[in-house]
């Protein structure tokens, strides 16, 4: 009888742990950039590409209802893909777009902007990737949409696509109608 009880307990423990660990397999291990959505943007500081004496930081985000920080580089092919959307977004009156030029050469970056247009009000240089890490980025391109209070509304890892563009426009338009 005791043997049977012992066996039963052992059996239950084994089944229980199988169930417990199989539940763990179902947890999604992909990283979601949504983790810091709703949090305040941490501080960053980058010298301006046009004038080294001007420092671009959190205080550069002012006078608008929404801000976009876009990390880009002239050598990154997906950045060319998303550039038309940024150009379209730059026409929005409530929005200010700030670029962070990631590990790039200044003349290449300027050439890129001359060729495809400049959607950015200001551009900061990130030579060693530290500014991007300060912003919590994963690489280029990456786009962070911020509210007036510099709270992260949305984060887009990888190039912006049509859906992302529509999502951003919707957020801005919703706010516009509220005023």
């Amino acid at each position, binding site marked *: 009888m005791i043997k049977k009880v012992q066996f039963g307990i052992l059996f239950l423990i084994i089944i229980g742990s199988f169930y*417990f660990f199989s539940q763990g397999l179902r947890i999604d*291990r992909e*990283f979601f950039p949504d*983790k*810091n959505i709703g949090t305040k943007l*941490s501080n960053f500081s980058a010298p301006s590409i046009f004038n080294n004496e001007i420092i671009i930081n959190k205080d550069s985000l002012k006078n608008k209802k929404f801000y976009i920080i876009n990390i880009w580089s002239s050598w990154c092919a997906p950045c060319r893909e998303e550039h038309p959307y940024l150009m379209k977004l730059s026409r929005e009156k409530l929005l200010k777009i700030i670029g962070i030029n990631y*590990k790039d050469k200044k003349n290449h970056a300027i050439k890129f902007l001359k060729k495809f247009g400049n959607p950015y009000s200001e551009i900061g240089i990130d030579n*060693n*990737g*530290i500014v*991007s*890490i*300060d912003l*919590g980025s*994963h*690489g280029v391109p990456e786009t962070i949409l911020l509210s007036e209070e510099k709270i992260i509304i949305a984060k887009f890892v990888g190039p912006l696509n049509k859906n992302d563009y529509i999502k951003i426009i919707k957020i801005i338009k919703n706010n516009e109608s509220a005023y």
Partner: protein
Amino acid sequence: MNLHIKKFFILLLILNCNLSIAFSEELFDSRIKKISKNIRCIICQGQSIDDSNSDFALDIKNFIKIKLNEGLSEKQIYELLKNKYGQWIVFKPELNYSNYLLWGFPYFIFLIGGVYIFIKIRRKIIKF
């Protein structure tokens, strides 16, 4: 003779300085390595920052180096990175209410096993 001794001591001093600089650099590098081994490379899954050569990993290594130079402790650097990228970025999770089972389970099994062995041995002793 006296001059030779002086020269010898100066040489020894220079050598000593070089050695201490080399050692301190090595110590610094080993600290970077230690931290980067416990940081997950989010974009190259299954690898630590130390294993990877991706741009992201290089940036994080650079970030760790700068923060250590600024005088931040290991714990502060982990906290900074966790704030930016979430708990998932560190390999060794912290003990909190959502993962107490993960930390406690091995000890629990160890305890149960110990009690089981104790009972078995005691029974055998009583039998003899």
